[in-house]
């Protein structure tokens, strides 16, 4: 593998929580617990897991939107883990984010032109007002919106169009990596495919790297080159997208794949039904975090935490039973 664009080593994000109104007992949520991953230039890495698994926290921590508790983050070979102030702001040009909810992630009081112009101004990317206007028009065209609409407000657009504005805003500073946090989950089914296709086109045109966070394994398989599966803040399995979805190794990935509803009535795929819910990350299970719901757990799984180890085919898995 060539030099990765983004590299995370043993990243931890822990939050302190107070349990109960008056009790002094402090708990700790290990939202992200010792996660390592790499994203190469022009690659899409999928980050999959159910709510509370820490995927959004990890995505935000990797681009320094929330502080990390431990570990190292490198971008383009440079350590950005403790970078601050003007230096960090300058680096932010290279990594941007697209948010889940296009209704709350755009300022309702700003026109599209204000929204797209702000990052240009912050990074001093357009020398003259004319160049700025032209750049905004170009960005709108790039995401399939009418440049005439630059003076409109977010509420005048549909959900899909708003998500396109969010994408244009991320693209304004010509980043090399975009963290996409569930960018199509809030959209209508018929519009999701438009946005997914747009993300793919933009990647090809601009050699962008994506960290694509989603709970929808089917979308992730379609869009991503490699996939990392998280559960309770830890990596359960990672590997090339097609292999991981066709032959998942970890019992959790297997259950996740089998739980996806299939449209084809002819496919009588056996379903692995998991009992219970995702446990609270404040009080995670001992040993393997998945053992209370795991259909193949043995005694060892309750006490001994499995290590993530490499398997044939370029993936890795954390399970005693594989």
């Amino acid at each position, binding site marked *: 593998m060539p030099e990765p664009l983004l590299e995370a080593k043993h990243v931890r994000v822990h939050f302190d929580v107070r349990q109960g109104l008056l009790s002094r007992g402090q708990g700790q949520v290990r939202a992200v617990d010792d996660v390592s991953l790499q994203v190469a230039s022009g690659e899409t890495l999928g980050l999959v897991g159910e709510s509370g698994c820490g995927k959004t926290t990890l995505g935000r921590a990797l681009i320094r939107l929330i502080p990390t508790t431990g570990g190292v983050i490198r971008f383009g070979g440079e350590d950005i883990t403790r970078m601050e102030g003007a230096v960090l702001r300058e680096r932010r040009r290279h990594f941007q984010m697209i948010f889940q909810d296009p209704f709350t992630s755009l300022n309702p009081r700003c026109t599209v032109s204000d929204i797209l112009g702000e990052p240009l101004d912050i990074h001093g990317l357009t020398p003259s007002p004319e160049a700025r206007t032209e750049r905004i028009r170009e960005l709108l065209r790039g995401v399939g919106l009418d440049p005439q609409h630059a003076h409109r407000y977010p509420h005048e657009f*549909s959900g899909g169009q708003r998500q396109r504005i969010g994408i244009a805003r991320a693209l304004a500073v010509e980043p090399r990596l975009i963290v996409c946090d569930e960018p199509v989950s809030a959209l209508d089914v018929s519009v999701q495919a438009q946005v997914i296709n747009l993300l793919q086109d933009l990647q090809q045109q601009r050699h962008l790297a994506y960290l694509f966070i989603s709970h929808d394994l089917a979308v992730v398989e379609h869009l991503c080159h490699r996939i990392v599966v998280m559960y309770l803040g830890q990596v359960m399995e990672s590997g090339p997208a097609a292999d991981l979805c066709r032959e998942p190794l970890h019992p959790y990935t297997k259950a996740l794949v089998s739980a996806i509803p299939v449209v084809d009535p002819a496919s009588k795929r056996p379903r692995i039904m998991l009992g219970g819910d995702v446990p609270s990350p404040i009080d995670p299970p001992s040993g393997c975090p998945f053992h209370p719901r795991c259909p193949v757990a043995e005694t060892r799984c309750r006490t001994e935490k499995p290590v993530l180890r490499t398997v044939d085919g370029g993936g890795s898995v954390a399970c005693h039973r594989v």
Partner: protein
Amino acid sequence: MPLLELRDLHIHFGATPAVDGVSLSLEEGRTLCLVGESGCGKSITALSIGRLLLMPPAHYPRGEILVDGRDVLRLRSRQLQSLRGGTVGYVFQEPGASLNPVLRVGTQIREALELHRPDSATEAEVLRLLRLVGIPAPESRIRDYPHQLSGGMAQRVMIAMGLASQPRLLVADEPTTALDVTVQAQIIELLQRLQGELGMAILLITHNLGLVTDIGDRVAVMYAGRIVEEGPATEILTRPRHPYTRALLRSVPELGRSSDRLAAIPGTVPSLGQWPAGCRFAPRCPEARPECGQRMPELKEISPGRTVRCPFSQDSEP
């Protein structure tokens, strides 16, 4: 006689039409899935069955809602009460928002029992219902408040409440949308099991065609206030006849069916009251002809129990 029958139902909000002539029927003990995207009128149709829409602004300029042969739109308030949560039970999308946050779980279920089956309003019956929906250790759960439950558990409690009156029809409005996939699978399996044990009919409202395979006997696809296609679930999924159903099936990525590009549907879902003239899907339809914009096509029966609202529909793979 079908258990539920909608005849040419029109629902308006003020002057804006939201449901525009929907006819459906559901037999005792069967499942009907009403599929569509946001704004198509599927949830409003579901709410109208228990007359749960606030009037005004909602009103029903035309049509009938027959539950067990009685027109819901003509019921008096006392009769309505025995219908709502009685003959017709509801399960809503967001269990967290639908449960009362200041009442214990057991109290809420008991309340439903007191209204509809006062003789059975006992703790034993509450425990039986919680056990029925697969809640472990119900003895300790009945004293919990909703915020102490996970999303999946809260939805099970909602279902237990919906079942308290022993309804003959359970209307489930996107019951799994707010849940994680592994929990979603549990809830769908639970609904199937309960239907088998209790023999009630289910009207499932969803935007997820994948769920239909698991649970639906029949499917009705809605677009912009109207039904565009209806028929047996397997036929609709394998041989969709309306271009909208076809496009919807093609635009969703499916596991293991790798393709370079998704077949996206251009444009956006028209908003309420801004429906285009003629066939409402025509502006986005890949197979549209000039005449499609002129006149609204009729919902025509193409084979027994199978209707399509497109004069140019042909049989094809999805």
